[in-house]
Each structure stands twice: as C-alpha cells, then as structure tokens.
C-alpha cells in the first residue's frame, strides 16, 4: 500500500479553495466523474469577450480532487477558450508541485470536466 502524503500547496487549495461555488447564469457547466475513485466534479464557466471571465467548481471528492478543481479554475480564468482548451491535468499537477501517484487520476478529473464544459460551450 502506497502512502498518501500531500504537499503544503495541495493542502492549501484543499482547505482554502478560492473558487468553489456555483455560477447561477453560467454559459456552460462541465461534468465528469471518476468511477474508480468515486470523485464527481461540476465546473461552471462564464464567458465574456471570448475569454473565460469566471470559473467555479463543486466537487465531491478527496483532497486531491478538491485541490485539482480549485487549481483548474485558477488556471482557466482569464484565458481565451482556445488557450483554456489546451490546459491538461499535467498543468494542474505542475501548478500543485507534486501529487501522490495514486492521486494523479483525481487531477485527470479536473481536465475532463473542463473539456466537457468547453464542448458544451461550443454547441
């Protein structure tokens, strides 16, 4: 059994997330769930002038899932749709510094939710 130990940065985003909540008049809501881990994430995005003006999340999940959600919002706010669509889970992990190997899939959840939101936006 691998030990799970989080960095200060992960704990910071988990304990004090800046971007949790809903956007009532969101332009798109992305959803993804990780059956394996059981984590479920919803991402609300608001677009203005071709840029993501705001992003908020609601996540049922472990510390890695909540921290990844928060970082993902942080990463996409202010980006053009084009640029945001290039954000991957690697960017989330890089931003957090490290994630325990067993928890990498929780960051993938962040990316999947984002891609789902952008797909819905294009429709």
């Amino acid at each position: 059994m691998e030990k799970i130990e989080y960095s200060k940065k992960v704990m910071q985003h988990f304990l004090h997330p800046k971007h949790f909540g809903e956007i009532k008049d969101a332009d798109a809501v992305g959803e993804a769930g990780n059956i394996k881990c059981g984590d479920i994430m919803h991402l609300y995005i608001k677009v203005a002038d071709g840029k993501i003006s705001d992003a908020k999340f609601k996540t049922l999940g472990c510390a890695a899932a909540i921290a990844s959600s928060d970082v993902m919002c942080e990463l996409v706010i202010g980006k053009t749709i084009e640029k945001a669509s290039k954000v991957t889970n690697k960017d989330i992990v890089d931003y957090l510094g490290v994630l325990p190997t067993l928890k990498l899939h929780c960051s993938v959840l962040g990316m999947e939710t984002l891609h789902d939101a952008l797909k819905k936006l294009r429709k």
Partner: protein
Amino acid sequence: MKTIYLDHAATTAVDGTVLKEMLPYFSRRFGNASTLYTLGHESREAVERARKQIAKLINAEPNEIFFTSGGTESDNTALKGAFLANAGKKHIITTKIEHPAILQTCKWIEKQGGRVTYLHVDANGIVNPQSVANAIGEDTLLVSIMHANNEIGTIQPIEEIARICREKKVMFHTDAVQTFGKIPIDVKKMNIDMLSASSHKIYGPKGTGILFKRNKIWIDALMHGGGQERGLRSGTENVAGIVGFGKAAEIAMQKMKSEGEREKKLRDKIINGLLKIPKSRLNGHPTKRLPGNVNISFEGIEGESMVLMLNEKGICSSTGSACSTGSLEPSHVLLAIGMTHEQAHGSLRLTLGRETSAKDVGYVLKAVPEIVDKLRSMSATWRE
C-alpha cells in the same frame, strides 16, 4: 492544539505502568530467557509471568499461549500452520469481512492448492451461524471468523459458531485482535481452538502478540530455529515486549467492565449526535458492537476529505473511502455489508479509548457537523 486521538482501533499509546514494567528488560535485565544463569532466569520468569497474565484474561492454560510478533503473525501461524500440518483436509471457511492478515493468508493458501469459502454477512455485518454449518464439508479443516470487526465494530456470534465446529470436529480459530481485553473471552466456555491477539491495541507495545492454541490442536511452525515457544515459534523472545503485553493484559482485565461501560456511553453519545446530521447512517450493528466503535456514512461527501479536515482540528480518525485505501477500492467490509461505493466513500470511523473524555466527545460533536456542512457546500452531488 490538543490532539484528540480517536483511532484506537489502529493502535494505542503504551500505558505508563506498562512502560515502567518493560524498561528494565531493555538494559539491566537484558538476559536471554533460554540461558542457565540468574540473569537469564529473570528473563524466563518475566516471560512466564506474562504468559500467565495473558492466559488468565481468556481463561486459557499458560502453556496454551504462544508469543508472536503480533496479530498478523498469529493469524498467519494459525491458518498456514493448520493447513501445512493437515495434508488431507484442504477446505477453510472464513468471512468476507476479515482483516487482510486473514484474507491475504487465505489467498496464499488457495495458491498452495487449498479451497476457501468466504461467507457473506448481513447488512449489520453479522455471520449467520447456520451458513457456517452449511458450508462445512468432508474436507473442512478450519473455520476462522473474527470476534469483532476492526472497521464497523460488529461482534460475531462466535460462541454459537464454535459450538457447531466442535460438534462437527472442525478447528475453530478467531481473530480477537479487536476484542482481547475489551470484552469478555473464555476460550473454554466458548469452545475456541485458536485465537489471535495483539498487544498494541490494548495499550501495550507494538510488535508483540499471542496465538492461543489448545493443546489438542496440531499445527506446523512457520519459524524454525532454536525451538523457543515449544517449537512453534523459534527466535529469541522479545522479553521487554512480552513483559509489556502481560502487564497490559492484566490492566485490561481489571478495567474491562468499567471502561467498557464508560466507552459505550460515550460511543452512543457520538452516534446519536452525529445521526442528527441529515442523510447520515450508522454502519455496523447498533448494539452488538465494540464499546469504542463509531462508523457513520454521510451522503454527498468523501471520507479522506473529512479525515484531513478533522486533522486540522486536532482529531485523528479514519475512513473506508476508496480515496484513502491506497487501492482505489472502497473498504471490502463496507461493500460486504451491502453499501454502495458512494456510501462507503463517505464513511468516517472514530474509535474511542481510555483517554477519551466527555469533553472530547463534545468537541467532536461540534467539529464533525461543521466539516460535513463545509464539504457538502462544496460537493457536486449535495442539494439542500
């Protein structure tokens, strides 16, 4: 910040009196218990005193107690030892909710050509004795069923099960790691053939345990060497550890009744308090339950997050969530009692002990609802 330790099922702190008893055996009384001079005799006497203290707690004979390195080794010795010593019989019966020390040993036995039946349990985690009787066949060697479960605290009807085994002439082993010193055990009255116990769960040192084995039961040794522990477990005795375990057993026996009643009251206070949180449920049996065990699931949130947030408030707890098991599978125990992945995901275990106070309980009853609220406010699936 004060630490409120509510993970006594994982391990406990060594009792002060126990530690004091142990200390001389690390230095002044360092003798090897197998030697002929006085220094060695002192160690031998200390080991035999501990054997008596432990035997007394479960109404065994001292020569039926074998010292091991802990619960895991005792479980391995009981199952593998029985399997290796009885070439003709290849069938073992156990349950789906055993500790990995039993389950992984059974997996190994299957690889060696053994056959294992993993019995179902009901929604409270209880094994039906009739299902044991039904599973016993011609080549059944051994039934191994834990006395109480380490996660949900459910206490099994082992007396009834052991009686069935005795009648059918099948060996009965119980993993009593969670009950030894906490609730009464009488190996004679209960027809127990083998029993595993561990020191560090009862305020003794880590790395020491016992296997109780009735003299009529034959099993092979796993450790071969100098023939200590009447050949069943070679290796120079861990005298200090054994002395500590003996003292811890003696104290546990004195305190069992009053401490059990005290913990039960605090346990029920926590359970009743936390069940006031909407969409929460108790896991395990409401009354056939270890005095110190609380296990509750909260809908819409995940256990690891709860444990980490409780840690921020100084509370040590545990969970059966997939996100914390290290295997990405929720606890096998919670799944076996019929919980969904999501319910298992949201489980929180608090296990009380001697130093848990009514004040601690008050603090927990304030902290947990706050954390549940906070996590639900962030949750994707929670709707008020």
